């Protein structure tokens, strides 16, 4: 890796000003993704601004019934937080399904959201990649695509976003609190990450120098019985081939509301709004669950090498909903 300066930031405004002013400066969280990228030559910063000291690192209840998660909170701590486990189990489960104990101890909430794709061509600087070097081409087409997108991809990029936590946060309608050079603003979790379109180099809507300071969850009582189902080859320590975060509000045998997001299928956590719409007001029979899943995946476009993923996504979605409904019924 190239030599770089390291600075430990003491306040958010200062950190933002420093990074915003230097196109080759970057924030450093737990470093579990960024340090790999330094070694692989994927990024080449001249300054790392460590933000782990200044960011809040706890969970606090908000007056409106929601909660606020500090962006510096480590993945392990967030997963173990009693409030999160009780009110938003899907988030805790998603975190615990990711990476390994050691990595979760180091990884931060902010860094987790901004971790980059695991596409093997993105990670190898000797190969063309539009995300790494815009305009150089996409090597994934015609290559190793097992972990690649089936929804919302473009001819320029079929990478997926790898975060499990982000999938749960999307389902929960979280809001990301961002500090920029012109102050604080709030971005809906579902809007944070982008689809690749013709600018796959941009993972998110954030600007250079924007610092994530917190994530807020709305009050969502039925999320107390939410769940995260991650499908992968290895029983642990593997990225999702497909994952489903879901919460269902069921009363009198009818689904009032559903919150569903899919992971491993798109350039961003895929909020399954079509499936949600299909389910709203429906009786949760095997047929309706399946119809909802099929509606969501109607536009799935696998590429050579991941043809199995629409079926896998459909089955996983149906199975997760079925389990949730079953749990509600027997409560």
């Amino acid at each position, binding site marked *: 890796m190239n*030599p770089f300066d390291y600075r430990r930031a003491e306040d958010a405004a200062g950190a933002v000003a420093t990074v915003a002013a230097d196109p080759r400066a970057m924030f450093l969280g737990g470093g579990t993704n960024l340090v790999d990228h330094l070694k692989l030559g994927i990024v080449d910063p001249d300054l790392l601004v460590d933000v782990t000291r200044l960011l809040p690192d706890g969970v606090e209840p908000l007056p409106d019934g929601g909660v606020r998660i500090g962006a510096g909170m480590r993945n392990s701590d967030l997963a173990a937080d009693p409030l999160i486990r009780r009110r938003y189990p899907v988030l805790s489960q998603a975190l615990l399904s990711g990476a390994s104990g050691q990595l979760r101890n180091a990884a931060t909430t902010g860094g987790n959201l901004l971790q980059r794709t695991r596409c*093997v061509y993105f990670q190898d600087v*000797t190969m063309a990649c539009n995300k790494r070097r815009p305009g150089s081409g996409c*090597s994934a087409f015609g290559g190793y695509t097992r972990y690649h997108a089936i929804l919302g991809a473009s001819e320029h990029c079929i990478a997926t976003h790898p975060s499990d936590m982000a999938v749960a946060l999307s389902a929960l309608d979280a809001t990301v609190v961002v500090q920029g050079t012109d102050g604080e603003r709030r971005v809906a979790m579902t809007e944070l990450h982008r689809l690749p379109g013709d600018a796959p180099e941009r993972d998110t809507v954030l600007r250079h120098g924007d610092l994530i300071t917190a994530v807020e969850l709305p009050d969502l009582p039925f999320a107390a019985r939410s769940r995260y189902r991650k499908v992968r080859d*290895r029983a*642990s*320590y593997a990225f999702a081939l497909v994952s489903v975060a879901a919460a269902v509000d069921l009363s009198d045998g009818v689904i009032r509301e559903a919150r569903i997001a899919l992971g491993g299928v798109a350039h961003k956590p895929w909020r399954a709004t079509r499936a949600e719409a299909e389910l709203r007001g429906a009786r949760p029979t095997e047929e309706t669950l399946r119809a909802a899943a099929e509606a969501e995946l109607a536009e799935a476009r696998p590429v050579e090498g991941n043809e199995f993923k629409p*079926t896998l996504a459909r089955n*996983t979605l149906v199975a997760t909903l079925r389990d949730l409904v079953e749990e509600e019924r027997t409560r």
Partner: protein
Amino acid sequence: MSGLLENTSTRAIGADIGRVDGPAKVTGTATYAFEHQLNAPAYLHPIQATVVRGRVREFDTRDAEAVPGVLTVLTHDNAARLADIGDAELAVLQSDEVAHRGQVIGAVLAETPEAARQAVRLVRVHYEERSHDVRFSAARTDLYTPGEAEDDEQGDLAGAMASAPVTVDHTYTTPMEHNNPMEPHSTIAVWEDAGLTLYESTQGVHSVRSTMAELFGLDPERVRVIAPHVGGGFGSKGPLHPPVVLAALAARLLPGRPVKLALTRQQMFDLVGYRSPTIQRVRLAAEPDGRLTGIGIDVTAQTARFKEFLEQAGKPTEVMYAAPNRRITHRLAALDVAPPTWMRAPGECPGMFGPEVAMDELAVACGVDPVELRVRNEPGTEPASGRPFSSRNLVACLREGARRFGWQDRDPEPRRRMEDGWLVGTGVAASTYPTGQMPGSVAAVRFEDGHYHVRIGAADIGTGAWTVLTQIAADALGVPVTAVRLRIGDSSLPSASLAGGSTGTVSWGSTIVAAAQAFRERHGTAPADGAEARAGLPDNPNRERYAMHAFGAQFAEVRVHADTGEVRVPRLLGVFAAGRIVNPRTARSQFIGGMTMGLSMALHEDSVVDPRFGCVVNHDLAEYHIAANADVVDLQAHWIDEADPYVNPLGAKGIGEIGIVGTAAAIVNAAYHATGVRVRELPMTLEHFLA
């Protein structure tokens, strides 16, 4: 022959003794190659080809040389000429030719590893690129028959297939896999007037010494290789690979200064070998009761165009089952790839996948229990050679395994059992590995300060050699283990063969037994201080008379998720017949380690080659999956008492590799039982089961 050890009163052999090197390892004081503390080391980072085939036209090293701390950029222009380039893989920096992607075409030597790595990135290489071909397929028209494995035909397999009432004829595949020992390949090379010293992560200090001496035209006495502790090798640290040669070439440019090189995990996917993928057409001809009339395997494997290596996957078919008609063939595809090498149980491991799944298919076709089917086809003598077995207890392993596993009540019908959304099944496969012995070892025993100092240049690659050789020496000398001081892992010790082919314990152990005998003959039981004797490994005439193999039976329970197709293995149980077990603790660790690696092969391991780039693209441990803790649930290894008077004075057979053999077939067979879906390709990933 084994009488010698029967009569000792101390009986260290067979005792459950903890690793003598254990405390040093868990406290971090055991020194691995890269960790030797030497004065003012320089660091080396390889430059690797980014084209698959062609030649280097020009290096532009200006920016690299400008990096602070860079000492020199090494290329074929300034590297020393080697004395012997007969092994093309080791002809490092001897020409501008590029024969595979990732090949070492240069290196940067710097004061820090960071500077070396940064400078490598700044070297610009201009190539003359040629077209390449890395596509492995059995349909290639340029496959050839390797000299070391001519077609082996007994009787008439085609005729047997045509006339048999029941036949199986399918193609099975295993992927490219990488050895991936925990400790990366690493070297410290020091070139001084006296010669070359190498601290090397290797499976054999003496073979490194002799190979390096030949390459550099040195008297072997001027090369010293030191490797007290090695963090795994699985074959990839057996034969030499380019990095050690590169380190020595660099050290030569910097006389007197230690040069350190540790490969990155990504580089290990390019430079230190791998298991060839295999395509196996397996044919079985049988009577309705399952008795085989014919068995055949046609293997296709790959090799590098510039260096031949054959994965002899047809081998176990010479050994396993009786059948009058037999045909074993091997074909190689020579590609623009790095050479394959040994990986744990080369030949046997992939070679017991296709045939053992085919046997399960035959069991289903005949309606015969798969354990019983194997028992019915038990040969009296080794089928291909006609020689008697020194001992063969496959049937005992199958029966004992069936009993322990609870096989008896098994309903053979597939897709009948479901628990919590998981389809559940069980399967079995046989296992075998030859009992070899490598020539060339010498051991010395010296009595000094009240201790017996036993010296042999053996290698402990994590297997437990430090411990079991101490036990063997103690029994051979008739003294407690505390009276023995063992030294291994240094080429200044008496010569030792490689840790490979599961021959370490039996070759070095038999040598130590011979040296102990010589010592007692010469010096009696009350030796004087300084008394010494040495001996080489004696010939064993039984090796010509008998076929010598270990056997085993592997049982698996598999769950396949009905919705997602995820595959899990809640239970694996192996029973082995591998002669006398020298130390149950280290032996169990070898068996369960092998079985875990077999599970890993069944479900996960897959080096994905992108033919456009000519290299493995999932080249790190996040993307190349190896079984992790959560994948291994209830895994048991057992063995039966087996007395074999012929194999060697210890009565022991090698155990390092047999554990991986057959595991994948047992798991695939269990998945069939769970789901009714027959998978014939590895790894067995979830898409096979999706509907």
